[in-house]
């Protein structure tokens, strides 16, 4: 039972719609700025350790430290990296120390029993090269791209951490 549209009712509807513009517009303007992430700049090449500090067998833990600007603050950030060598090619492998499940800090498991890399939170277990052995992690540990010195000595760099 809609009433016939008159000039008066049409104008009323349009005026009401007009009133919604500042609210909807303001909402989007505010939302866009409120949700925007802080501007982030970080270095693209970070020193990790010298090549002769990577052992022939086993895993070592190193931290890469660098500065990140997030919005107004410049902070020193440190991230754990596990270093090992590929069992067949002997190439240096660097893995991020964050569990791929929910980013808890993975530990080197020092006992002889069990996989060598373990997450203390939800029971994720990884092999020496970061493959998932047990637990909830959906992916192997993230590999970092490295710049390894060709002469067999000198500093290893992490590229695009």
């Amino acid at each position, binding site marked *: 039972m809609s009433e016939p549209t008159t000039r008066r009712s049409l104008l009323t509807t349009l005026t009401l719609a007009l009133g919604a513009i500042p609210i909807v517009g303001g909402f989007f303007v505010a939302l866009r700025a409120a*949700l925007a*992430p*802080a501007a*982030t700049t970080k270095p693209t090449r970070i*020193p*990790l*350790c*010298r090549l002769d*500090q990577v052992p022939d067998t086993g895993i070592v*833990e190193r*931290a890469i*430290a660098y500065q*990140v600007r*997030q*919005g107004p*603050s410049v*902070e*020193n*950030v*440190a*991230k*754990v990296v596990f270093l090992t060598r590929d069992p067949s090619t002997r190439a240096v492998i660097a893995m991020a*120390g964050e569990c791929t*499940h*929910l*980013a*808890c*800090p*993975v*530990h080197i498991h020092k006992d002889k029993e069990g996989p060598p890399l373990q997450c*203390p*939170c*939800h*029971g994720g277990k990884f092999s020496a090269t970061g493959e*998932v052995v*047990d*637990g*909830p*992690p*959906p992916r192997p540990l993230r590999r970092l791209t490295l710049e390894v010195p060709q002469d067999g000595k000198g*500093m290893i760099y992490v590229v695009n951490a």
Partner: protein
Amino acid sequence: MSRLLVWLDDRLGVVTLFKDSMSEKRPPRGIGWLRTLGFAALTILVLQVLSGLAIAMHYVPSTGLAYDSIRALEQDVPGGRFARALHYFGASAFVIAMALHMARVFFTGAYKAPREFTWLTGVGLFVLVLAFGFTGYLLPWDQKAYFATKVGTQIAGKAPVIGEHIRQILNGGDEVGSPTLTRFYVIHVVLLPLALFGLLLAHMLLIQRHGVAPPGLKVTDPGEPGEPYFPHHTAKEAAVGALVAGVLFWLAATQSAPLEAVAEPSDTGYDPRPDWYFAGLFQLLKIFKGPLEPLGTFWLPNALLVGLALLPFLDRNPERHWRKRPFITIVGVTVIAFAVLCTWIGVDDKPKNTKQLNYPLGLTEIQKEGYRLVRRLKCTECHKQGDVGKTDHDAPDLDRIDQPPDMVAAILEDPLGTIESEDMPDFAHIDATSRYTIGVYLQWLHASMHGKK
């Protein structure tokens, strides 16, 4: 009525409101002490607002100062330690009171028609209180704060399609950092309170509109009116409110809220554990392995939540008494038993590594930066400090290192060339300023422990 009250009532309508909702409102016969749990939650809310206000006056939402501002609050502000402890225990009590209130509404069938939206707003309030807990965690910026938030925002990131966007929005960037702290502070003290009071108002107006559900009767049976709400039932509520507040005051007076060492993202020696009210979820996450993992992080918790929200629309049985609707009662008991069991096992999973190197209030920025580097570079793997670190290594304790900062910097760069140590790894890969800062910290540490300037 006195002339003043009549005058006020003409203008504000408060006396009429009081009569309509309190002194002449007659809830059904048979409502007892179990109907006071919602009021218990309301009492805790008031305490949370007041203690939270006190904390917020002293808190600094920045990664450099948040942790120290909490310690300054506890050490220097009169009543500061009490306020924070009250807020901490209040958060737990809030979750308990709301869970019990919800269980009561569930087992008495009070969510049924026409009170579906009262239930729905209640579920919304419960979610908001958990969100308060989650965002409040981060603010002290200690180890637990950092890692719990990291895990929590990762869980949010597991939602299909939009998950990664949600995580980025929560973090204010790629990772948990200083933008996250600002966001969580705003969410905790502005957004969530606004949402909470909006929903609470709706919840109260709906309670006012539909009254208390008569116990044990079918939804069509309005029951017989009992005694007026005021003063009989309100007296019970006042007693429960006083009891809850008394227990919380006693807890806050006798115990402090925990505070771990300041957050250090690179600390791999840390075993993150959530507070008890997220321990059930924590345990759930461990159950599902490999490809089933999204089940634990996303589908099951959210299915539970959606099921809870839609309960009054799914359960169309007109009976209210729990014995007359065995199916839903069994479902409820099973879910509660599962939640309690998961929480129990989750709480029982204690972290193995709890000791971290800490520093007192009153350090300069440079000294603090040196302290952070000492933790980051894991100096305590070989150099003991107090009860932190290895004991089986012959490296000197950190506080025993009595060298000027530039010497420490030189040793860090080249241990073999300076102190002829073959055991100590070199730290040539960190920049000279950082090495010097470590020296500044060690100099302070030595002076503070051994009283030398």
